[in-house]
């Protein structure tokens, strides 16, 4: 069902306010800042942190009367213990011996240690030193106008270090950033700054995993120079008690190409906020998204694409598979102001409901002022097609197996767009459950 009913499921005000206060004080320790190995003492970050804390105390927690959060209950969030997620010596301990399926540079990213310590970066990839970060930090957010996103403020208020990378030319090895909270409890804030210079290109997979009552919250800021190309995947594999927040702000110069693919499933609560700006138009943006939610899970994606000049292109496909009493929210804003003539934008939301109690809220929000544009949008909500199921069963596939094959087919259109290192994580199996019975 697609519905615009107002949710009243937001966490009770006082409990959530207390939770927020506890989280802020857990991350208030001065030693937390200095323990960060990447950019400790960096003034820009300290300023962003202080400003975010001020704002957040003013904003409080999101409530159901906040338009951007009215479908998204925060109950799973405030069930996360409001403390710093304890670091572990061996991140990704569940597969310490494993290595990526393809040649990729895997960095373990826990917000505490320096992911680049002892790592030889491939040609074209380098660290941005703290002194040089100030010119970039916060700028992609500012261009998208999403500094006041609660999620971005919240994350900024906690972060103690920034992983900052610059790309020159073509980096031939895909980069993989893995944050695995394991079954530990607490909050892990992360921040990534990525600057692709003119004509640079990179393939990046960002993996978030969690199996316990944890919150991973990430702000990723990306700047694409003229002619730069970024293929960016976000794969989030969670559990009923885990939460994932990610704000993904990208600023694209003319001639740049961004392919951003997100695939998340299994989280008690997951919210992604891609906020993309074509600073002068004339860039190409391809957005792909998949949410898988079951039981009482909530998957929310709020995207914003802003064209600030002519001849920009957007191709957006957002999918959801929703079972049991789970809920999917998709809010897709596209802004085409007067100066963005000859913009071509298409947005499609396709949703598969597997239960009568599952719920999908798909809300396109196209603000088009320019008159010479081609913008389309659409949303479908369907069940598994009986004729497709019957066709497969008439060839000997059991009902479950047929349904599974159809589900995989539905998801593969998105999963196939993830950067190559994703195959290591077997996304279809991880998101949909057990392997296809043969």
């Amino acid at each position: 069902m697609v519905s615009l009913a107002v949710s009243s499921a937001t966490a009770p005000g006082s409990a959530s306010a207390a939770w927020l206060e506890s989280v802020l004080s857990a991350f208030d320790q001065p030693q937390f800042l200095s323990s960060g190995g990447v950019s400790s003492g960096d003034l820009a970050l300290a300023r962003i942190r202080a400003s975010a804390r001020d704002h957040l105390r003013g904003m409080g927690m999101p409530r159901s009367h906040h338009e951007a959060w009215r479908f998204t209950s925060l109950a799973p969030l405030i069930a996360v213990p409001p403390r710093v997620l304890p670091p572990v010596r061996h991140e990704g301990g569940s597969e310490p011996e494993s290595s990526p399926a393809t040649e990729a540079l895997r960095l373990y990213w826990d917000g505490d240690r320096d992911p680049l310590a002892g790592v030889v970066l491939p040609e074209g990839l380098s660290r941005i030193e703290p002194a040089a970060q100030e010119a970039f930090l916060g700028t992609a957010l500012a261009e998208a106008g999403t500094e006041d996103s609660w999620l971005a403020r919240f994350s900024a208020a906690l972060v103690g270090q920034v992983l900052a990378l610059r790309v020159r030319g073509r980096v031939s090895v895909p980069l993989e950033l893995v944050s695995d909270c394991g079954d530990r409890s607490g909050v892990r804030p992360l921040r990534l700054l990525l600057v692709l210079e003119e004509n640079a290109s990179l393939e990046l997979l960002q993996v978030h995993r969690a199996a316990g009552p944890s919150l991973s919250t990430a702000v990723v800021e990306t700047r694409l120079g003229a002619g730069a190309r970024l293929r960016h995947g976000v794969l989030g594999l969670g559990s009923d008690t885990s939460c994932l927040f990610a704000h993904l702000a990208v600023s694209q110069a003319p001639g740049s190409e961004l392919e951003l693919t997100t695939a998340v499933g299994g989280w008690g609560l997951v919210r992604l906020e891609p906020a993309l700006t074509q600073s002068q138009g004339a860039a190409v943006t391809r957005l792909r998204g998949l949410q898988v939610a079951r039981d009482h899970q909530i998957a929310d994606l709020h995207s914003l694409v802003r064209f600030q000049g002519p001849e920009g292109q957007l191709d957006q496909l957002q999918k959801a598979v929703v079972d049991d009493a789970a809920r999917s929210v998709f809010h897709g804003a596209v802004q085409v102001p007067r100066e963005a003539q000859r913009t071509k934008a298409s947005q499609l939301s396709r949703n598969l409901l597997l239960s009568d109690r599952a719920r999908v809220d798909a809300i396109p929000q196209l603000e088009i002022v320019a008159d010479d544009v081609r913008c389309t949008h659409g949303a479908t909500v369907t069940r598994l097609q009986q004729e497709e199921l019957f066709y497969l069963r008439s060839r000997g596939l059991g009902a479950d197996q047929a349904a599974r094959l159809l589900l995989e087919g539905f998801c593969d259109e998105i999963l196939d767009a993830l950067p190559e290192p994703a195959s290591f994580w077997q996304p279809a199996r991880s998101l949909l459950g057990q392997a296809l019975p043969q």
Partner: protein
Amino acid sequence: MIRPDSPILLEITDLHATVGDQPILKGVNLTLRAGEIHAVMGRNGSGKSTLSKILAGHPAYTVTAGTIHYRGEDLLALAPEERARAGVFLGFQYPVEIPGVSNLEFLRVATNARRGARGEEELDTFAFEDLVRERLKVVQMDPAFLERSVNEGFSGGEKKRNEILQMALLEPLVAILDETDSGLDIDALRIVSAGVNQLATPDNCILLITHYQRLLDEITPDFVHVMAAGRILRTGGKDLALELERRGYDWVDEGLEPAPQADPAAPALEVV
């Protein structure tokens, strides 16, 4: 090939069926023996396609009376996938497009389901590729179609070839081909027909459902049945199809006049 002593594979007795509240089949009787090719002809709405879907177990149809036995077993008691594994195959009039599902993977899973039921070893990816490449020749199909999603973007002819390819892989004992000739040009019709002829053996039987004589020019039936108003009104040899072509379906409708409603159990066969 008619051999009176060959085993009965499919026996339909006084079959009545509805879709929703609408009665479609009103007493169908039909017996198929190993080695035989039968053709069922009739106008749109005569119940031909309903009969084929019921044989495959489509959930939208309800059997209200009568029986179907497959090799002596109650076919109606089996789920669609159990029928397929046991050797009943329906070639669809409109093969379904399934985006995102690889044709090769689908064919492999289907073939292994049938092999498992026959007590044969399942084929791994490599062994299956060998098998499928060999069977592609039956319908002169381009291997590129294996890499695509099931039937997605296939032309009408390609879809029908894909159906016959599935038949070649599943080696059914009863194959029901529902308007396999529709949407085919002359060349594709010849290729598909040649494939079916190649797959017809003394051990299996084929039920062709068609509007037109032209399919029967390519695949010679042993029996031709004419359906109207949910029953088989006439049965004959291959000449019946030619006569039908000449005289039109109105001729068959004459057989409807002694309306059988008073006695639905009366034999509905009229041998020409």
